[in-house]
């Protein structure tokens, strides 16, 4: 993870006691959050945790039931990138951006320069006259982001900006987000791609059931949660039978959502891969792989969900 460029100590986004309910159902349950200039903040959480609701509130698209959202300037200072491709499919890239610049409130004289700037930033200039609906998913994602940058917002809120695109396109989007970060834009993004979050986010927050349960820099959170522990990953060739499960559990392993994959944690000095493998094979288990690795954000995420009792 690259070091945060926190040139501006004043938070660009401050969320205090955010509560939002749809009828009796509370989707935000008192969230406090702040994001500084030049910081990428990743909102993580299972589906239905309240991430999109919180981001819509930050972007000024939703009124909180109680609590407050304060942004740097006015609402125009916030750009919002929806999860779906929110551009006109029958218009070219340039036409889309020109129309969306008007929506963003830009004056006629400023539109051309602004469109040229964001297309250059996102390496879209060569595609300027291509119909958006005919672009690949990755390029459509870039246009989707660019459409929210036309008014040069101080805060950019992105709802799963890299969902459904290939690694190359994802890297291109990451590059664009890093550029914005360098320029001092405060970025709040939600994602289920924990590798992505660990790679580009300065801080992450894990939301469960409308609450922000942990928050901090990914490396710091991982260290604080796991200390010197390493993660042991056992990949089986066949699912464990009922009489084999106790052997796995005795080694401190727990099954994941994938029945062939068991994970456990232990201090690095106590892990003996050869002995562990032998013990499991003695119990009749067929091992495909035994791996020891440093816990990552995915491990932290699972640990937070386990602690919260989330399904």
């Amino acid at each position, binding site marked *: 993870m690259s070091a945060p460029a926190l040139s501006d100590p004043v938070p660009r986004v401050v969320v205090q006691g955010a509560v939002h309910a749809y009828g009796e159902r509370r989707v935000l349950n008192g969230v406090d959050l702040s994001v500084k200039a030049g910081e990428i903040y990743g909102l993580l959480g299972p589906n239905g945790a309240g991430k999109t609701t919180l981001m*819509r509130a930050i*972007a*000024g*698209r*939703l*009124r909180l039931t109680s609590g407050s959202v304060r942004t740097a300037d006015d*609402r125009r200072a916030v750009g*919002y990138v*929806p*999860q*779906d*491709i*929110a*551009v*006109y499919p029958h218009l070219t890239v340039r036409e889309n951006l020109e129309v*969306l610049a008007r*929506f*963003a*409130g830009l004056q006629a004289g400023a539109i051309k320069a602004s469109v040229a700037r964001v297309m250059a930033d996102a390496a879209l200039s060569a595609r300027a006259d291509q119909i958006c609906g005919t672009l690949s998913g990755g390029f459509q994602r870039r246009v989707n982001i660019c*459409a*929210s940058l036309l008014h040069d917002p101080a805060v950019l809120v992105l709802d799963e900006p890299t969902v459904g695109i290939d690694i190359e396109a994802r890297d291109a989007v990451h590059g664009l987000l890093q550029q914005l970060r360098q320029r001092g834009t405060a970025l709040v993004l939600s994602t289920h791609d924990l590798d992505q979050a660990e790679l580009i986010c300065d801080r992450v927050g894990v939301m469960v059931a409308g609450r922000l349960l942990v928050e901090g820099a990914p490396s710091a959170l991982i260290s604080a949660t796991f200390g010197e522990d390493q993660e042991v990953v056992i990949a089986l060739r066949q699912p464990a039978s009922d009489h084999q499960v106790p052997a796995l559990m005795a080694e401190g392993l727990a099954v994941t959502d994938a029945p062939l994959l068991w994970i456990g944690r232990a201090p690095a000095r106590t892990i003996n891969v050869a002995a562990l493998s032998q013990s499991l094979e003695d119990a009749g288990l067929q091992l495909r792989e035994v791996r020891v690795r440093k816990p990552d954000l995915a491990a932290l995420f699972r640990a937070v969900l386990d602690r919260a009792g989330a399904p």
Partner: protein
Amino acid sequence: MILAVLRVMLLSLVRDRGALAMAFVLPPLIYVIFATIFAATAGDEVRLRVAVLDSADAAVTRQLAAAIRAEPSLRQTATAPQSRAQLEQMVRLGEADAGVWLRADPSLPPTEPPILIIGDAARAMAAPIVAGQVLRLFGELQAASGVQRASPLVERMEVTQAARAPAAVIYYAGAVAMLFLLFSAMHGAMSLIDERQSGLIDRLPAGAVGAGVAVGGKFLFLVLQGVVQTALIFLIAGVIWGVDVTSRLAEWLAITIGAAAMAAGLALAVAALARTRAQAQALANFMVLVLSAIGGSMVPRFLMPGWLQDASWLVPNAWAIEAYHGLIWRDAPSADIATAVGLLVAFGVGASALAWAVLARERRM
């Protein structure tokens, strides 16, 4: 594998309420509505409006006039004509479907047929139907009282119209224009649902301002599209059948703008109220078909039962179709046209305001 595809289609249909409604609820409902309208046009429910002028004022004509007024298959106009000129004017303006002028005593030696039935070519079936009813009523009178019958008894004439084109061609120019104004406006307004679902509408300023921009921009486009579409229909009517709107072009344009505004407003309201495209599509199809049938796009309103003719004044299609017909066929006064245009514009603006309010509430800040 064919069965697997069939199963997918079946499950998709069962789980899509809009498609279910389109497939199984709307057809019977539309059938009931259409059957009510179309069966009535060919059956004994048609109650033509008749104006009766008894200039002869003889015992026989007074009896005949009373019999006509009492005839359940005919309706009397609210105003009783006092002269032949007024009778003709009532037919010309569409206040009466046909006029009955009892100009001489049928029992006296004939110099000309004593009864004149005045009709309008735009309602070609009305005068023959009324003439038949008058002859039947006179026959009953003759049988009851032994009145001698002049021969021939009835003469028919049509009020003259300035328009050169056939009346049906003029009528259906407006009627078909209204049908397709609604169809294309509904189709265009569906983009509002797509933009809400994709989040495009979130790129507009939040709250009422953004909702106003979205609804206002689409409203203007749909009105413009409607004007061009209607102009094309009337242009073709002019080239092929000589339908002329140029003598009152400004009023024609006003009706067209009003009609397009009505269709645009209605379509935007449907799109704003619907949650999904399927819902909107089902609602739009239902509304277009029903409004067109009741409003007179499929059969002229005078052929509908009396209660439906009265009810159809609640349908904006009828205001536009009658305004076009009045303008081109009957040379209706400008005040009548202005009233229709006012109603159409008010409806369109009102429906658009509803769409705006729904959208603003959804995006309220």
